[in-house]
């Protein structure tokens, strides 16, 4: 198949894209932009390469959600934070974490079905619970880490991890999820 044929096929698939795919790709685009823009607005000096590489990878994520682009995008944005950002807990960090989670989940959803496949709302049914819990974990982790650090308790890392595990288990069982059975 020639390049022009591939482009024609890709455009035809884009035209025939289902609403579920449009929603997933829109979520990738919006969350990806948030994850890229928020660090850029911070007072600390982010590497220019992060923004440039992230932008290219984000376009690739939207176009080809079933590729490695999404993983690379997550890695690049995380590296940007880890290399230059100060060791502070902030709302921006939490929002970036949630945005990366949305990029990850939306890419996983879009990657599992062809762009032109007809998918109902039911397809998202079993994603809601884990996605919500994961989304809540960012703020919970931030609050817990802030509390432990302010209290200056010795061995605070162990305490943070234990608290998070307990919180996760509590949310898990509160949601009616049993071990060994997903339904």
């Amino acid at each position, binding site marked *: 198949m020639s390049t022009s044929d591939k482009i024609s096929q890709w455009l035809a698939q884009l035209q025939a894209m289902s609403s579920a795919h449009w929603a997933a790709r829109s979520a990738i685009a919006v969350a990806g932009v948030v994850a890229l823009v928020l660090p850029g607005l911070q007072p600390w000096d982010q590497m220019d390469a992060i923004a440039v590489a992230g932008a290219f990878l984000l376009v690739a994520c939207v176009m080809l959600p079933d590729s490695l682009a999404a993983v690379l995008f997550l890695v690049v944005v995380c590296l940007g934070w*880890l290399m230059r950002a100060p060791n502070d807990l902030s709302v921006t960090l939490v929002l970036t*974490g949630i945005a990366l989670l949305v990029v990850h989940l939306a890419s996983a959803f879009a990657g599992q*079905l062809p762009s032109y*496949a007809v998918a109902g709302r039911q397809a998202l049914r079993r*994603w809601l619970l884990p996605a919500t819990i*994961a989304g809540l974990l960012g703020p919970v982790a931030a609050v817990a880490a802030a509390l432990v650090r302010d209290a200056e308790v010795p061995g605070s890392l162990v305490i943070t991890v234990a608290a998070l595990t307990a919180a996760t288990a509590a949310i898990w069982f509160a949601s009616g999820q049993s071990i060994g059975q*997903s339904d």
Partner: protein
Amino acid sequence: MAVLGLPLAFVAAWGRYLRPREKPVLKTELDADVLFEGQATTYRLTVSEALDPDIDLVVASLVRTPWFRYDPPQAAVAESVANGAVTVEVGVRSERWGLRQLEHPTVIATSVLGGYRAKVTSAEALAVSTLPLRDGFEAVDAVPRPAGLVGLHRSRRPGEGTELAGVRPFRTGDRLRRINWKVSARTRELHVTSTWSDRDTEVVILLDTGTEVGISEGIDGRSSSLDTAVRAAASIAEHYLRHGDRVRLIDTGTAAGGVRAGSGRAHLRRILDVLVHADRRGRQQDESQLARRHRIRSDSLVLVLSPLLHQGILGYIVTLVHSGCTVIAVDTLPPDVADIIDLELHDAKAWPLAWRLRLLERRAELDRLGDLGVPTVGWRGAGTLDEVLRDAARVSAAPRMRS
């Protein structure tokens, strides 16, 4: 690190914990594997009832096969698992006659959060046989030389039948149940009700599968010469078999193969089953091969379905006329044949000119056939043969002059 990584780690752990452990099994079935052109059926993919509860979504995508239209058009459906089983249904509409296999569907089962993905394969490939029959073909109830005693055509001879011929005085040999008691009582002389005998004829359909001219776009678009010929053959066979005649199919190429003369609904199915193979590339036989392989009774009605371009067919028609058959040529050449140009293969100026010259030549050949008593009609569906059949019946009923 924890704020960025923990949500992702949780999602990964959730997906890992709820990973499927059993490979699903796929079953495919069609509601109907024999269709008429333009008819639709449902292609059903069922992932086994003992489906792993951790499988969340089943995505089925059918490789689109030419001459099938799907509903949804892209033939890809994602269905959530409910009650341990999932059934995906895709509508399939057949748009051209023929026997075609539906490609193996691509079915993928994914676990919660798309963490695990398994490709599900089906063992059997399904085939759809599309019969080249759609609208009803009707022709006048006239055959040139009715022969047997089982058909529905009114004979020119009185005899056992259902068509009333008149009331006449009783003669020796008349059946008692034929006595018309009312007329007999009134005239005080025995009278019987006479009828015309019901007759059948042998209709030979000569199908030219050696040449295909024109573009085939399925039931809703343009038709090639082979499309027209096959559809016409099916319609004519259905019509004459419905009227009790014996129908024989002869393939002048080698694609479809022939069907010997027979009657009844089973015979129609036999002919249709052979016609679905007419799109295989055949080899055109020449005149002598045709005459040697296919001997036709001299009192048969022969309907030639051909684009009438090959000299072998034209020569064979002449042979049939000389052997005493009533021959009617149905011209299946598409009317816009000169305008069909493949710019990669043909010269845009020379190609239409060449076709015009060939069509003029062909016109002269058809005129010569007409002089021999072979009428040529274009296929228009119902009513195509009415006029020529009436003419043929009139000619055969006329007194013959012996030289």
